């Protein structure tokens, strides 16, 4: 209990509250702008937070994550273009409702569903994180290795696009993590005689390149694209009738979203699509879906925001990112000298509760900001891309430079951006590569330690039931996209 109070006290500092507010504001703006995403914004925020204390730094990022997920719904409803991928399903019913002249009602349902999903998942977060951490403290290197493999296998289903591409990108990320000096032997690997590479490739420049510069190059092909915007009137809170219709959907979607969020590598987008599908499946008015049905907005919005709280559970308790954005937050934790995983809860529980408090506060803040400022935020889409994206590049350049005060990091960002653009074009998502890069060290270290403990008899790993379970789940995770495609084809 002391730790909980300490955590809340850390966040109660006026300076921290102000930073959380800034994080929420940036999150809603970024979420509302098509093309900009939460992982990109958190990656760009990373260099800025280097100078901050760890608590406000991570709290600000976590707040941005919550608000960014909600912000995406504004554009999904008003211009039929999801500001962020998790809002893709919100547009299915949000935009038709707005076309009917009920944009304010749609935004109100989205805001209330988002905050409900977010808060419910945060309570799961605060209950599950200590429990999961306790279980994970008994893990030996082989169990950790199996867990990391399970997390990487989940990349196969991170998006419906391509499991093979996701796995290649994940493995390439892990391989990228091997660049530099091998910790056990001190041998230089893939440095090509270049001294800057001996310390390895920094997370921050790669993250900025993959998320921001790659998207900039992508957007350079669509600078003349214009959106048709519906003018929002006043945002209306859901009526009693609306509440009666959506409360069941909110509860169900919050559960789905939290569960999907807790799964390593699965994020808010998957949760939102599942939330929408389940809302439709359980609805008595299936025929209304796609025409502006309130459940069609509540389902994905509750689910995608619930996934944010859920995704923090494996990130903090196990050191395994629950989504692309939490992968960046994990990198920030490492940068601030923390050891994400069970030790974080054991050694600094107040820090975990401070993040919980920050996210809780962020949920209330974005409700207020969303209700009061949706009309203003909808105008953000009017910012010409010809200024928006050069602005993003300026932040990318300065952000990557600030990381190590060297031009080398700017080059890494640029190269990562070009590679990211080519990857996106050929269906390789950047998120798996980032996850691989962040998990790389854990995978190699746990594998090496396991081999040393087991005297190189790798098959003895399977003597542990936990290892068996994780490997079984990994196999299922790998095969599922192909099995589901076969069933869908029949």
């Amino acid at each position, binding site marked *: 209990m002391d730790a909980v109070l300490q955590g809340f006290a850390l966040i109660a500092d006026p300076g921290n509250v102000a930073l959380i507010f800034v994080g929420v504001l940036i999150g809603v703006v970024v979420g509302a702008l098509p093309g900009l995403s939460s992982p990109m914004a958190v990656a760009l925020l990373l260099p*800025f937070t*280097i*100078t901050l204390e760890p608590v406000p730094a991570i709290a600000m990022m976590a707040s941005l994550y919550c608000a960014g997920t909600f912000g995406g719904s504004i554009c999904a409803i008003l211009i039929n273009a999801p500001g962020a991928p998790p809002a893709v399903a919100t547009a299915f019913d949000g935009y038709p409702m707005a076309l009917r002249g009920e944009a304010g009602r749609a935004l109100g349902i989205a805001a209330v569903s988002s905050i409900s999903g977010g808060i419910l998942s945060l309570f799961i977060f605060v209950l599950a994180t200590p429990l999961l951490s306790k279980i994970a403290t008994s893990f030996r290197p082989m169990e950790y290795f199996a867990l990391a493999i399970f997390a990487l296998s989940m990349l196969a289903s991170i998006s*419906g*696009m*391509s499991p*093979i*591409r996701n*796995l*290649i990108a994940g*493995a*390439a990320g*892990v*391989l990228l993590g*091997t660049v530099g000096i*091998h910790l*056990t*032997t001190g*041998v*230089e*690997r*893939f440095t*090509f005689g270049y001294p800057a590479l001996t310390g390895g490739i920094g997370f921050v420049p790669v993250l900025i390149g993959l998320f921001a*510069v790659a998207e*900039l*190059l992508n957007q*350079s*092909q669509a*600078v003349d694209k214009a959106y048709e915007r519906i003018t929002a009137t006043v945002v209306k809170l859901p009526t009693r009738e609306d509440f009666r219709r959506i409360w069941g959907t909110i509860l169900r979607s919050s559960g789905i979203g939290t569960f999907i969020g807790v799964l390593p590598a699965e994020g808010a987008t998957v949760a939102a699509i599942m939330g929408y599908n389940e809302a439709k499946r359980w609805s008595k008015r299936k025929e209304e879906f796609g025409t502006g049905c309130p459940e069609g907005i509540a389902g994905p919005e509750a689910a995608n925001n619930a996934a944010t709280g859920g995704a923090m559970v494996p990130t903090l308790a196990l050191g395994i990112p629950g989504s692309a954005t939490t992968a960046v937050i994990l990198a920030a934790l490492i940068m601030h000298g923390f050891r994400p995983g069970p030790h974080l809860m054991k050694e600094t529980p107040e820090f975990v509760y401070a993040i919980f408090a920050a996210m809780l506060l962020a949920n209330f803040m974005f409700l207020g900001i969303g209700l009061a400022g949706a009309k203003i935020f909808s105008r953000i889409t009017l910012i*010409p*891309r*010809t*200024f928006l994206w*050069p*602005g993003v*590049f*300026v*932040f990318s*350049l*300065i952000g990557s*430079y*600030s990381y190590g*005060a060297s*031009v080398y990091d*700017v*080059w890494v960002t*640029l190269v990562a*951006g070009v590679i990211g*653009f080519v990857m996106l*074009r*050929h*269906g390789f998502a950047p998120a798996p590569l980032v996850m691989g890069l962040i998990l790389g060290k854990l995978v*190699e270290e746990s594998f*090496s330690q396991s*081999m*040393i403990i087991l005297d190189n008899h790798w098959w003895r790993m399977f003597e542990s039931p936990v290892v068996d379970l994780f490997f079984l789940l990994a196999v299922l995770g790998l095969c599922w*996209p192909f099995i589901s*495609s*076969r069933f*869908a084809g029949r």
Partner: protein
Amino acid sequence: MINRTDLVVGVILLAVCGWLYYVTASFDEVSPLFAQDMPPERFPRMLLWIIAGLSILLPFEQWLRKEKGKILDTKRKTPVRPIVYVTIGFLILAVLAIQLIGTFLVLIVVCIGLPLLWGERRWKIMVPFVVLFPAAVMVLFAHVLGVYFDPGVIGFKFP
């Protein structure tokens, strides 16, 4: 059954894997006792085998995934527009220029050059953007956060 573009991508990935595998052979040798039976090249090689194996499967993925596989070709159906190459070239020049003209001037050049390249001609918006935005960013990072920026060969520093 085989997607030709994916076949090319797969072959390129295999070639990169082959080259990196060759590079692993050039890692310094350490005694097995010192390496504790985990030589530095073992783990990267395992990963390269995995990537190579998946690259072989890549051309068959669309066929394996039936209907869902068709989405994979949507983004690359249209050729890359020349503006992408021009933008990449401009960004490379901008980064090269950091060590010559310094970070602040590069930011100004980016704020003028990129919108112009992308067809922006609304000077009434451009002038305040070029004047205010780089200055605001530099104030935040150089003065508030205390980051030192390279003034370049010509030595122009942000005031």
